[in-house]
């Protein structure tokens, strides 16, 4: 007889118990520690932290553990936690020029003040599986430490700007928009676009950035500079009237230098595509800077014809927590609507056959 979905509550309870068991895996093996995740799966933690929009490595590691390593699920956990926190204010603009550099490269100059610093990068590694890692290994030998230069590393785009070759981006003291408090509205200013992309999905931005290189959007980019390292975060509480340091965080910044033909009123010069991501994530920072530049098309008088140049397309779809929710909601029951579709298609088919018999 008809049992339908009675017992949903029990089923959910059992499913979640199974999930907890599956998460733990084989109990003969030691349980992974969140501190191990934080240290040894650092880039996964960084990705979750950026997409979860919550700069806390410990919580991101916990989210990854709870999500069985699913980065989108982990970002969702972190977002749902973050949203319950009070918002005290916003920081002063980060001074990435004063970054404690771990990595800094430019592809537009062979050498420049501060030099090229490769840092901990996969670049130039040969992607050969290292079977020694599968065995319990000794700690790798510490690399020789370079003499720490206290030299401030000027930003490449600032060097170009000195010559007037880089179009300036007007500084603003306006209160930054916050899309976690106000819904997206269009036209979206650049601060809002960058905010959305900074917490957006790495894969989505990567694909969009790639599309601008393949003709969907008019891109002529050079990596002016990529830098990664610790920056100081400062806030200025109104009751104090001066800035206080609330901590340091690692960020990755990418500044793309792009051609611009100029207009009647603006001389030909380079324009900037900007990407900034919490943690170490160069792929995303680069993709973001490509898409940022593509989204500036209307402002620079360029024709906008491609997905990466459409603010609505990019901003409404770059959030993986929103995307995954709506895509995956299709597995919820839809039988009421499907029943309507059944009746509808039966009626339309009956008419179709009747017309052909007549």
């Amino acid at each position, binding site marked *: 007889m008809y049992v339908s979905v009675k017992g949903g509550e029990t089923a*959910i309870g059992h499913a979640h118990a199974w999930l907890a068991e599956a998460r733990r895996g084989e109990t003969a093996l030691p349980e992974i520690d969140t501190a191990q995740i934080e240290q040894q799966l650092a880039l996964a933690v960084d990705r979750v932290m950026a997409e979860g929009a919550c700069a806390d490595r410990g919580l991101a590691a916990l989210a990854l553990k709870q999500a069985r390593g699913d980065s989108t699920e982990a970002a969702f956990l972190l977002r749902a936690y973050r949203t319950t926190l009070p918002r005290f204010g916003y920081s002063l603009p980060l001074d990435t020029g004063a970054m404690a550099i771990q990595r800094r490269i430019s592809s537009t100059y062979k050498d420049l003040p501060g030099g090229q610093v490769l840092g901990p990068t996969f670049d130039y590694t040969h992607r050969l599986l290292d079977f020694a890692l599968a065995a319990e290994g000794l700690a790798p030998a510490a690399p020789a430490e370079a003499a720490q230069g206290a030299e401030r590393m000027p930003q490449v785009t600032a060097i170009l700007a000195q010559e007037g070759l880089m179009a300036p981006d007007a500084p603003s003291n306006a209160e930054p928009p916050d899309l*976690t408090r106000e819904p997206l509205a269009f036209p979206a200013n650049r601060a809002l676009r960058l905010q959305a992309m900074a917490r957006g999905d790495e894969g989505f931005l990567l694909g969009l950035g790639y599309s601008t290189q393949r003709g969907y959007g008019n891109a002529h980019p050079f990596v002016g500079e990529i830098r990664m390292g610790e920056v100081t975060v400062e806030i200025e509480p109104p009751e104090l009237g001066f800035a206080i340091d609330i901590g340091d965080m690692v960020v990755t910044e990418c500044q793309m230098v792009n051609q611009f033909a100029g207009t009647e009123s603006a001389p030909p010069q380079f324009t900037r595509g900007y990407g900034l991501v919490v943690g170490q994530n160069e792929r995303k920072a680069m993709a973001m800077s490509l898409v940022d530049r593509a989204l500036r098309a209307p402002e620079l008088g360029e024709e906008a014809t491609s997905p990466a140049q459409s603010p609505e397309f990019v901003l409404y779809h770059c959030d993986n927590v929103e995307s995954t929710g709506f895509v995956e909601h299709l597995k919820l029951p839809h039988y009421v609507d499907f029943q309507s579709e059944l009746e509808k298609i039966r009626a339309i088919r009956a008419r179709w056959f009747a017309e052909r018999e007549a």
Partner: protein
Amino acid sequence: MIDGYNFGYLDEATKRMIRRALLKAVCIPGHQVPFGAREMPLPYGWGTGGIQVTASVLGPDDVLKVIDQGADDTTNAVSIRRFFGRVAGVATTESTPEATIIQTRHRIPETPLREGQILVYQVPMPEPLFKLEPRVAETTRLHAMAEYGLMQVKLYEDIARQGEVATSYNHPVMVNHRYLMSPSPIPAFDNPKMHMNAGLQLFGAGREKRIYAVPPYTHVQSLDFEDHPFKPVRAPYACAICGSEESYLDEVITDDRGGRMHVCSDTDYCASRPPV
């Protein structure tokens, strides 16, 4: 009730923000009001808008009913009801008349609402025109000018091609003779229940960050043509359990040889009637 969270999960400032949006929505029936939807501990697309609306209007004395596909025992309805049990500790019910707030996905209960009851709809896509015009900036302009020709043409083309309107659910409605509105993906069968309903109907779209409302006793007209009037769709059978010939039916496959039966989608309505 779970420790460490405010009554109803959301903090009071957020609830106030949502209630302001709700008031505006009630004042302009059918108009979509943007609101600062929060990230919820349930996924987008699974009822975050409805949950936020319910959380904002819920008080300790309320009696909550949650349905999905008309049924109280579908997994997502169970999950949302448990959520409010954990974060608000309110009384819950499966009875439509006993509930003060009913959160629903895809159905309007068969038992008519009375004055004072609130029906909260979970809405996936609040914009009725989105399949015809995906740009929100553009649809906002179309609503401002009450320019709904796109939708009329779409319905006309359906009729020209296949003899009838192709939408069997989420059939757009005109609210208070002014705004075109998505009724959410309820079957067209339920559309007439929205018209002059005694209850307050609130709609929450979390991912799209929009709220809209149909106040009690508001005119709601399913979009149609004089020579092709709106036709609600219902399977032409009686419920195998209660024998109802008025209620909306689910088709249940009973074997792999074409066997099937039809039963009420609204489980509370069905259970309240004597079995056949």
